[in-house]
């Protein structure tokens, strides 16, 4: 049965069992995905996952109780399960006090986005990958299939989002930890595009054949490629942009918000939902704006506000969650062709890894270089480097030590698959930074 039709049918059925003063909010998250795990260019694990989960919030006045459960997509079975669930939630609700921060959209806004793209069969994909990568030590994951998100409530609102896409995230190893990381994501598989990407990998692998340099701890001029920038911003996003974390003084950007520190005036960072890669409706029925500017001109400019914070702090909702899922960093003026010249002598860092805060109040972040990172001299790549630990403040990286921003940006689709495939993404340029601190 069509998943959209089925979801709305279920909610209609549940609505008919509501008591007079009750409001029901329902969200659906689902996927029909294939996962192909590869090592040494052979299949390690391959399979298909079909999972549909319904979240339900049953409200009466200012009291509510919520729950999540899987749907079998068998109507009789699911309705029976969900009616039992509603009964349990009514009972639990009696034990709960009024929720002062309960807030949901009461003016129905309908939306529907269905990307009707068709993917190449995963069985064919794995054949293409293993054939095209013959001779390479390739390890990684192909994840592809259809994703679903839905919202419906007893006030008549209906929202639906469905897309089919893939994310092939892989690494080709030269030896030990010397490797080239790549991604190929999209909604239409192209054999030529895969070949091009693998050709680029082969070229970079040749660069890794040179003996690796071991750098001493110290400060270096570096280029952070978009993947490396995404690692930094993912760490900052951990409490960095939500209104709740600001009001409770837990944001790592506390000094930026208080105005005692600033970033370079060229830094403009926004949550950009306009690209249509992720749905804009929230699980409370709100529609998020196309853009929420978080940092502008190097200064704090805004917060992500979910429905609870909106009620608590009396400000409009602009996000489904206070963790960003569509970060967009403005491009700069350094042309990609001029990058190595601009770097001159320093480190070309393709990937950073395992970042965490070493001093949250100063937004100081530590992490590791990973995969193909190179020592560059006089604008020419000289040698790969052994992995190094960095420990650096965002106020240096995007502030006083920022040299320039690349003029082209890369769209990075989040490859996370905890519980389910992510729909997050970032649109980022590379950054040229001076005096970047390596510590170990």
């Amino acid at each position, binding site marked *: 049965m069509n998943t959209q039709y089925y979801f709305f049918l279920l909610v209609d059925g549940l609505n008919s069992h509501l008591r007079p003063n009750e409001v029901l909010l329902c969200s659906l998250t689902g996927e029909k995905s294939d996962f192909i795990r590869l090592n040494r260019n*052979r299949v390690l694990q391959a*399979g298909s996952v079909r999972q549909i989960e319904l979240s339900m919030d049953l409200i009466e006045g200012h009291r509510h109780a919520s729950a999540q459960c899987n749907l079998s997509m068998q109507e009789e079975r699911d309705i029976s399960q969900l009616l039992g669930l509603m009964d349990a939630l009514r009972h639990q609700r009696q034990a709960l006090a009024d929720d002062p921060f309960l807030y949901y959209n009461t003016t129905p806004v309908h939306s529907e986005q269905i990307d009707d793209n068709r993917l190449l069969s995963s069985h064919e994909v794995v*054949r293409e990958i293993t054939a095209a990568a013959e001779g390479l030590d390739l390890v990684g994951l192909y994840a592809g299939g259809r994703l679903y998100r839905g919202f419906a409530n007893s006030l008549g609102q209906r929202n639906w989002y469905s897309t089919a896409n893939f994310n092939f995230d892989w690494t080709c190893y030269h030896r030990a930890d010397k490797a080239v990381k790549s991604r190929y994501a999209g909604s239409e598989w192209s054999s030529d595009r895969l070949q091009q990407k693998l050709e680029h990998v082969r070229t970079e692998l040749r660069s890794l054949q040179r003996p690796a340099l071991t750098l001493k701890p110290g400060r270096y001029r570096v280029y952070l490629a978009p993947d490396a920038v995404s690692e930094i911003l993912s760490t900052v996003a951990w409490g960095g942009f939500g209104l709740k974390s600001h009001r409770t003084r837990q944001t790592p950007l506390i000094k930026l918000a208080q105005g005692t520190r600033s970033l370079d005036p060229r830094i403009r960072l926004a949550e950009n939902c306009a690209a249509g890669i992720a749905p804009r409706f929230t699980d409370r029925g709100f529609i998020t704006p196309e853009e929420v500017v978080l940092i502008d001109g190097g200064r704090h400019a805004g917060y992500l506000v979910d429905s609870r914070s909106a009620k608590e702090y009396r400000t409009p909702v602009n996000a489904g969650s206070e963790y960003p899922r569509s970060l967009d960093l403005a491009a700069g003026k350094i042309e990609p062709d001029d990058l190595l010249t601009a770097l001159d002598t320093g480190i070309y860092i393709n990937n950073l890894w395992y970042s965490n805060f070493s001093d949250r109040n100063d937004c100081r972040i530590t992490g590791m270089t990973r995969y193909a990172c190179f020592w560059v001299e006089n604008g020419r790549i000289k040698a790969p480097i052994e992995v190094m630990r960095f420990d650096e403040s965002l106020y240096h990286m995007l502030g006083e030590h920022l040299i320039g921003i690349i003029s082209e940006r890369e769209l990075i689709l989040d490859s996370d698959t905890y519980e389910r495939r992510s729909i997050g993404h970032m649109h980022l340029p590379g950054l040229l930074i001076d005096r970047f601190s390596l510590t170990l």
Partner: protein
Amino acid sequence: MIDKPRQYYFHSNSPPLFSDIVKTFRALAPAVDFWSLRLVDQRLERITVRQDRTEPPANRRTLGAHITVFDGGGAGYAATCDLSRSGLNTAVHQAIDWACATADIHLIGREEHAMPQRSGRYQSTIEQPWHSISIQDKQSLLIRLNRRLKAHDAIVDWWASLEYLNNGVMLVTPDVEIVQSVVHITPSLAAVANREAETQIRSYGSDNAAQAGLEQLSRIEFEEAAGRVAEEAVALLHAPNCPSGMRDLLLMPGQMALQIHESIGHPLELDRILGDERNYAGTSFVTPEMFGAYRYGSELLNVTFDPTRPNQVGSYRYDDEGAAASRQFLIKGGILKRPLGGMTSQRRAGLEGVANSRSCSWNRPAIDRMANINLEPGETSPEEMIASVERGILMETNRSWSIDDSRNKFQFGCEIGWLIEQGERKGIVKNPNYRGISATFWRNLKAVGDASNCAVMGVPTCGKGEPNQAIAVGHASPPCLFEVVDVFGGA
């Protein structure tokens, strides 16, 4: 007080029962070299009181089937939450199709696949069940703790929560049935103190996840901790930064759990050593030839894989390949003995491992994981350790963790530290961090705390694998003293 039965939606054996699904599945069982069915029914409840207000409780139940097929040299799986006859039948055919499609390009040989050998059962030992008190009583406890946490004007955020997880798993093959029921409880509380641009957090409990009922709260003195946590959070606002330099380092059990996890547990995972995780979680500085000879740490270092320890969060009787679990030394007298690899990885590597092939839920295949990785107690009391230190730092409660992809160069930070000078514990220091290299750090292990000071810790979310999986693992450890460690503080 016992809740009324109808409140038990999330924790009853409400239909469909495993036995009904198994019966349906057996009628569909395919004629292949091998098949298995793993049913998982996970129920989670979480109650949080933040700033004296009860947040909406979380109630989640996930129920599904994971079907594995080995056939003709290939292997495949399919996972579904449609447990009807047609849903299971579709999944069976998807798994068969994957086995067929990968037969000539599969990495794992036909003879390397693990198959369960015997049936059995396991159930967590619980003294005071989660549902033996009402949700109101749990809220009352958390509200009481909130009042203790808000002990000072400088406390700007505070919360306390209780999480309950009931994980029922049934593994079925043509000849074997294994049923395991694991119950976790994770209590946690925290206080956030602020003064201008200085924010400090102290927390307690989240690394004390256990296979237990509500008795875990008194075991870890959960209620008593709230006042201390609030006081320490405020004290940190006025404390100096941790000094920089090479000093002795005394790690308390909470931070030892993280240290063991990141720089012993992960590097010993056999799938990492085999290269399976090189695109995500990483590889390992440990290589196969090191087992049996490599000096991992000082002679004081003894580390076991022990899924048999009652109440520890990573305990079980069988792993998800159906292998029977037993206690094994991973490191003895500082010498590396065996890796953390399940039967499939052991066959691939030609090494003896342990029963640790685990999956986080029905929607993910099993991979090599930690279970309980414990550092065995020594003979030194914490007082003796402190007395032996001329210049050192004591660190407690992890707050930051970062390590390279081969699990060698690490940097960890804690919520709080204390100076140790001339054999005495002195004042609090904030932002304590330290860095080192796994391959040499454990060789500087100078003293290991005695059994009376050993704490049984549990980490509820260890992330790894592609597709990603988060799973609970346990680490028991006494305090440990390391010499000549690079420590430092904040800006």
